[in-house]
């Protein structure tokens, strides 16, 4: 694994990566089966699926049934990978995820595309700020908020053979490139993207790029911020949280999700129990989404590098007066 971040965008769109990686994985593993709910054309799998009807099942616009079918296929020995948009991959079919898959121990991988503000022009109805919270409460689940296309490939391959219910939230468009092509990102292991001494920023998904931008800006003001990529929200890399909180004495958490139930909560739970540390949160303040371009939405919901800088300065004040 090599970090190659320079702020530029990865030329690959994640939908194209999905459209290539799922068929490639299916070619390697005869047990893989792909299910979608009438959104194959959104991730470039439709053509391959049409040519491989035994490997791909279009379940129509019926997500609850799709999760149940996937769970049934798992019991028959298959490794299902399911895709739909994030809200329909979580809240729309939660009881099915919980019981048919989780409780019944039918292992499936779910890809929820366009998490949080990356749902952009589909608007508030399609903008999940709660998907991570739902999956976190499912025992034994794995939750990934993807950082860049290279990571997407790595986690897809790991999730396929991992037990439990696995949830990968990823935008269909591009991300800032963080990892060198071909890098392996072991699930459950946070990545230190930047060292720092004054505070640590724990970030995931699109907020990793914002955190790195914020850290660079803070450095110009003489503030040394570490940045950790917490792409595995569950199981959380608890040791990374504890050691960096202890090392720096101040924490900022940044996520493209409601501050309730996601990474902010996960990190807070660890801090409260293991090493109480001043913390500030850059996340959606318990609101519903709305329509607009991503830049607008990041401003609207407080999810920019500037918001992270602000949070960093506020938490540093609390650290000093502690």
């Amino acid at each position, binding site marked *: 694994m090599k970090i190659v971040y320079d702020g530029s965008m990865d030329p690959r769109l994640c939908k194209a990566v999905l459209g290539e990686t799922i068929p490639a994985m299916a070619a390697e593993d005869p047990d893989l089966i792909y299910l979608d709910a009438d959104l194959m054309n959104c991730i470039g799998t439709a053509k391959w699926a049409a040519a491989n009807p035994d490997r791909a099942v279009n379940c129509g616009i019926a997500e609850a049934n799709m999760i149940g079918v996937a769970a049934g296929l798992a019991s028959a020995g298959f490794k299902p990978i399911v895709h739909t948009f994030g809200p329909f991959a979580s809240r729309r079919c939660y009881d*099915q995820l919980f019981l048919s898959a989780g409780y019944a121990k039918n292992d499936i991988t779910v890809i929820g595309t366009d998490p949080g503000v990356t749902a952009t022009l589909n608007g508030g109805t399609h903008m999940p700020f709660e998907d991570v919270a739902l999956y976190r409460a499912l025992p034994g689940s794995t939750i990934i908020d993807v950082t860049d296309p290279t990571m997407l490939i790595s986690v897809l391959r790991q999730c396929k053979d991992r037990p439990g219910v696995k949830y990968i939230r990823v935008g269909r468009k591009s991300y800032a490139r963080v990892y060198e092509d071909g890098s392996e990102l072991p699930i459950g292991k946070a990545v230190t993207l930047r060292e720092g001494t004054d505070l640590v920023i724990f970030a995931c998904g699109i907020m990793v790029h914002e955190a790195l931008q914020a850290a660079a800006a803070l450095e110009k003001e003489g503030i040394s911020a570490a940045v950790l990529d917490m792409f595995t929200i569950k199981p959380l890399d608890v040791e990374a949280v504890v050691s960096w909180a202890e090392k720096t004495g101040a924490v900022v958490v940044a996520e493209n999700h409601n501050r309730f139930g996601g990474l902010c909560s996960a990190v807070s739970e660890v801090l409260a129990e293991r090493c109480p540390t001043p913390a500030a949160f850059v996340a959606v303040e318990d609101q519903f989404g709305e329509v607009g371009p991503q830049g607008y939405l990041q401003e609207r919901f407080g999810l920019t590098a500037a918001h992270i800088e602000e949070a960093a300065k506020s938490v540093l004040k609390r650290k000093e007066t502690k």
Partner: protein
Amino acid sequence: MQENNKLKAFAAEIRMAAIEAIHSIGSGHIGGALSIADVLAVLYGREMRYDPQNPKWPERDKLVCSKGHAGPAVYGTLALKGFFPYEELKTLNRPGTHLPSHCDRNKTPGVDMTTGSLGQGTSLACGMALGDKLRGRDSRVFLIVGDGESNEGQVWEAFAFAAAKKLGNLVVLLDWNKRQLDGWTKDIFPMGDYVAKFEAFGFDTVKVNGNDIDELVPALERTRAGGDRPYAIVMDTVKGAGVAEVAEKVMNHSLPVSDEQYERWTAQLKEEIKALEVEQ
């Protein structure tokens, strides 16, 4: 008819076993367990391929009891067929038991799928049937769905899926017992004509008296043909069938079973079995 009499006796034994389990803990979902005893007798006494010594045998036929609260009837059947000792029926719902109120594939040998949140077994059964088909297995998946359960929208998503994916190895057994927890389905949430619904969805559909072994046997036998259409057998049943005192109570979804009732009902069912043996 001799074989059918054996199945009828088996159904009575299943009823006794379910009552045994429910009585041991004092109360339980007796109405819906009794209504499916006859179809369970035909499935496990005649129609299904399975091996109690190897309950996870991939080539077996599978049962999904989507109305998971009928667990005691399924457990009784499995115990009688040797999946686990009959005595274990008395552990129903006790701490650490292998026999929880609702069917759990990870706890009970022979239970093919976890169910309990109504409606979910339907999609699971579709996935299992599709999986068997893709694996080239000639096994069948039998899906018991309650009529109250069919209030759930997921049931109809699954039925549309079964027809769309041509799951001819799926047999839906609708337990049309006309009652749900709060009373008569016609008063709570009437679902209309099930036969017409299944036919409209593209199922090969028949309606039978679901508490009559003589009608169930040929209806299930004809599903062996497989083909491109899933099968639906609308079973006209009585919730509580086989124990008049239970059947007569409208609100019989879950009832206590006293020692006296247990003795009396068990004696009646034993008499029934004896009479069937004499007939042979």
